């Protein structure tokens, strides 16, 4: 999940040199559209296809209307503009769907759980999410390293002036990449729907973690996004699960109760700080 988000964002950030805070909004849009299409069509597959296409369209539209003029501007201007987009999308969703969280059914095929061992059940849906994440990772790897489009993307990331000079329509390329990044966020959003609360502002809750992931992984690197996502997920989960028992072996249980949850929630930022200290470019800096 985190990887899907991070991959889209890192593509946009690394290749287009654009800080896109509104990435979380595409995640939210994807979740809302998928939920709505699901209740209209009753078919999860149809909902996935439709919502991916519409999120892609929304991404392309946003790029054409709002962001195209911002590439040459300072990062601060981009932050301001995309922050504005966050507010815009949150309010739009609140107007269209209402402020209350909406109901999202788990598709029937994934509603159950897998019995890994007696009484040890793992939700089928989460297993499906992991598989989709891996599939997307493989697909992205193939696209980026084996296809012409991927070559252009990599070239654009290294030296955009040169690519443009060689006769490549870099503006079109940017639009495509941005739309693609938005669709990845939308995919993450639609997968998140049955697990989390689908409500206005849901994108911002995950956005910060996504930024941590791409900073750790190295900006612009898809491999970095994958490794970063796994690392952040593991550290966060293990911290929540084991930090308190670990602390209570060292200090009194009361102090561990107080410090454990607090420490667990800052652990991923500690990780980020450590990575930045030793490798300021992140673990897998994009070449160029």
């Amino acid at each position: 999940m985190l990887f899907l988000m991070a991959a889209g964002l890192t593509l946009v950030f690394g290749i287009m040199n654009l800080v896109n805070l509104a990435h979380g909004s595409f995640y939210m849009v994807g979740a809302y559209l998928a939920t709505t299409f699901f209740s209209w069509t009753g078919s999860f597959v149809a909902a996935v296809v439709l919502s991916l296409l519409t999120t892609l369209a929304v991404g392309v539209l946003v790029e054409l209307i709002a962001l195209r003029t911002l590439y040459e501007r300072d990062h601060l201007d981009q932050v301001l503009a995309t922050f504005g987009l966050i507010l815009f999308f949150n309010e739009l969703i609140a107007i269209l769907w209402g402020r209350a969280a909406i109901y999202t059914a788990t598709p029937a095929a994934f509603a159950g759980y897998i019995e890994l061992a007696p009484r040890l059940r793992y939700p089928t849906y989460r297993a499906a999410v992991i598989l989709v994440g891996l599939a997307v990772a493989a697909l992205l790897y193939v696209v980026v390293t084996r296809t012409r489009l991927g070559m252009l993307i990599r070239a654009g990331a290294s030296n955009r002036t040169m690519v443009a000079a060689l006769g490549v329509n870099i503006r079109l390329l940017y639009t495509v990449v941005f739309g693609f990044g938005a669709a990845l966020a939308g995919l993450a959003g639609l997968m998140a729907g049955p697990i989390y609360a689908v409500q206005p502002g849901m994108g911002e809750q995950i956005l910060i973690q996504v930024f941590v992931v791409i900073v750790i992984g190295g900006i612009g690197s898809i491999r970095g996004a994958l490794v970063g996502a796994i690392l952040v997920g593991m550290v966060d989960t293990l911290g929540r699960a084991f930090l308190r028992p670990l602390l209570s072996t060292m200090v009194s249980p009361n102090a561990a109760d107080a410090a454990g949850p607090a420490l667990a929630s800052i652990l991923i930022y500690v990780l980020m700080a450590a990575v930045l200290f030793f490798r300021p470019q992140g673990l897998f800096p994009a070449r160029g």
Partner: protein
Amino acid sequence: MRTITRAVLVGLLAAVVAVSPATAETVKIGFITSLSGPAGVIGKHMKDSVELALDHLGRKVGGLDVEMIYGDDQRKPDVGKQLADEMLKKHRVHFVSGIIWSNVMLAVAPVVTREKVLMIGTNAGPHELAGEQCSEYFFTTSWQNDQTPEAMGKYMQDQGLQDVYAMAPNYAAGKDMISGFKRYFQGRIVNEVYTKLGQQDYSAEITQVRAANPKAVFVFYPGDMGIQFVKQYAQAGLREQIPLYSVYTIDEVTLPALKEAALGNWETRYWSPDLNNEANRKYVTDFRKKFGYTPSFYGAQSYDGVMLIDSAVRAVKGDLSNKAGMIAAMRKADYKSTRGPYKYNVNHFPIENFYLLKTVQAPDGEFAMQIQKAVFENHKDAYYQKCPMKW
């Protein structure tokens, strides 16, 4: 000529100054709640209920014109405090009301009561404000945090449940909830887990629950956290293995998003839409008619808050400077509350009933909370003896 003009102007000015106290015939009420972000929906329930209360009062409070000033605290204590400052100094409000979150309440209430302005809480009830830090300027139309989990603790104790796993977000109210639960539940607590406020993913915690294999799980996850926790608990297949008992987790705010994932779960609460009294029937019917959705306890408390203010202003015949008179009036709780009649304890927290609720599916397919029985009648909070106030 010029001197005459000037004299006239000065005269006019003096007249304006002399007249201005009379314009205080408007009651100004500041209402702080969370209107944006994930908790924005709770704020909407509250704001809609305040508006409905004003409709029922003919857009007057205590017979005076009313000006409502809404503020969005974004679930942040510092923002809430700034809003309170602004309401006190810039708008010069007569009452401050609202507030969902206990950590915000702990930041705001002292600021308001220090200025000797009346504060009417309509949700959060941190134990500090019921005990040592109680104030004659602070009232609440809700409850003290511990009370609801006390009722759940009592019920689970009576059921003879052993080995309970307790979970709550790591903030002021989370701690209150667990300590209230433990006050009446005497069985073994397998583990107490505190998670980050606003956490989305509970897979790690749910795995730990499974590993500990308790007889029951008790949680407090208000708003969006409740939706996420209950969904993920059901998806993990734990619902059939370990029953879930909760407070402030499954309510009319979260139920539309949860539906069958919450079916059969137990809650305790002081109020429910099906509570049968005249004021409540009127509130629930008119609310559904005006806004098209079912109100929640957050709303009922906010509705009551406006009605309590109305009773106070009415008792002093609109003399808003008579604060002692208004405090004396509010202590009587002389208005038609949606929970039915109740009394105030010495610390200005209600002495009220608490009910056991269950999520059921009505024949028309709608999911609703239904009162099963009263767990406590006229239940007092555990901190009032620490409050030095006497009356």
